[in-house]
């Protein structure tokens, strides 16, 4: 799904502007990470796309069509979102029921429903848990069920809204692995990952850095992530390894280029 923001401004109170005349385009089938400190407005972007909020001024175009109250339902059918807290998004008493919930709402045929539940629970490695109660799962497993639920709707756009920030490192790894494999499947889905963990932005096609309601950096991970001054001014931090590269660039030492290259590589394969 192609997403276009044209001069979008949003605020709750006029004196505290959340998004300030924001314009950007996300191309269909790409993965974009939107990063920024807490309160930078990054989650507001997700809420605007799914129509939970309306711009104060400006327009949002989805697949070149202006998002309005009239086509909101039709647009929403093409997107899915995974939220921060895995405990707040469960409705079913088994994993299977939970994945089925959205499908039932859309009156999907029973056989098709079963096919999708099997397919997508396998994709997130949760096929063995279909009969289990979601309450007894770990945080990472819960989020994977939530992802399967969204995938089962076969949406064009999947938004991860800080979906790892309440998980332990094991859960975070599981979710990152799932997002990464979704991206690598190249199935034409558009993925937006909203996060403040720079490590999670490493494998995106493109990173938008938000500060004070404006985009302050826009580019590939290798362009954006070493920009220490702007990242720090935006309440973010340079990944230790990249910061090391910046320090080493300033001095001379044996096999400098090879070592810098190797550090770079190790960061992106971590």
């Amino acid at each position: 799904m192609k997403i276009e923001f044209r001069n979008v401004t949003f605020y709750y109170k006029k004196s505290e502007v959340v998004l300030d005349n924001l314009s950007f385009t996300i191309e269909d089938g790409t993965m974009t990470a939107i990063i920024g400190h807490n309160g930078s407005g990054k989650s507001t972007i997700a809420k605007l796309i799914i129509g939970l909020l309306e711009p104060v001024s400006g327009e949002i175009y989805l697949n070149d069509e202006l998002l309005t109250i009239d086509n909101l339902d039709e647009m929403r059918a093409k997107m899915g979102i995974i939220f921060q807290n895995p405990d707040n998004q469960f409705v079913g008493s088994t994993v299977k029921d939970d994945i089925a919930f959205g499908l039932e709402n859309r009156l999907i045929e029973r056989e098709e429903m079963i096919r999708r539940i099997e397919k997508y629970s396998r994709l997130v490695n949760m096929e063995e848990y279909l009969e289990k109660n979601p309450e007894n799962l770990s945080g990472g497993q819960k989020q994977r069920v939530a992802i399967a639920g969204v995938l089962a709707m076969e949406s064009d756009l999947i938004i991860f809204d800080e979906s790892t920030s309440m998980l332990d490192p094991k859960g975070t790894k599981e979710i990152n692995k799932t997002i990464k494999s979704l991206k690598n499947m190249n199935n034409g889905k558009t993925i937006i990952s909203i996060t403040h963990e720079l490590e999670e932005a490493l494998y995106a096609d493109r990173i938008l850095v938000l500060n004070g309601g404006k985009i302050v950096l826009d580019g590939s991970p290798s362009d954006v992530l070493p920009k220490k001054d702007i990242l720090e001014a935006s309440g973010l931090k340079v990944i230790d390894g990249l910061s090391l590269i910046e320090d080493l660039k300033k001095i001379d030492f044996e096999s400098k280029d090879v070592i810098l290259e190797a550090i770079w590589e190790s960061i992106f394969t971590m």
Partner: protein
Amino acid sequence: MGINFYDVDFTYDVKASKTLKNINLKINKENEFITILGHTGSGKSTLVQLMNALNLPNKGVVEVAGIKILPNNKEMLKPVRRHVGLVFQFPEYQLFEETVLKDVMFGPKNFDKNNADVELSAKQALKMVSLDESLYERSPFNLSGGQMRRVAIAGILASNPDILVLDEPTVGLDPKGKTDLMEMLVEIQKETNKSVIIITHDMNVVAKYSKRCIVLDDGKIVYDGGKREMFENSELLKNHNLDLPDISKVANSLKNKGLITFEALPLTKDELFNVITRGDENE
């Protein structure tokens, strides 16, 4: 003094298996900076809740500031909780008062009846967490997440505990908020000599700040010692599902490619920087 555990067992449900098994632990009142590690469900939160009598041992003895924690002895609760201040996970959810100052004053009121004294300790605590005076009369609910967390920590500091225990204090904060909070805790530790105990999953935090690591697995203490020995013990890390700091991973990958050599595993950026540049001087 400090906190001592002698052969402590604990279970939430006598019919179920034990949550903590045979815990022996000695924590000094002063100058500790301990990180408690272990995967989710290993017993970390349960352990720290025994330190201030929120949980009572089923077997063995927990001794805090020389006081033995015994079931059915409510007399000992106040001095124990005065000695050990516990900050829960997401403590900002527990703010409730009309103003920041009132919220921070709530804790010490339980220990001290004099309102002027209480206000003074609350203000000192707010200063320690670097919260600007202009916010004291604001509603705590109009603050940012990082500020709310500071208010909640000040609420515990205001009772002036000797030992400060925090259950995952940096979870959910953005990278700058994380660093600021950790630097603040280091500062408080240095200035007051209070021992600080932190539950964390973040190995970069451990590498940078921890003086002593306690690793729990399945309710047992499987390691209690320095971070360097821990991170260099690959067997231990593997057996208990512990990760390396990011920089150490980079260091290992450079070593495996034959680009650098080292005896002591670099844990921080500066350490790896030194290894890479010193290697050059030797040649």
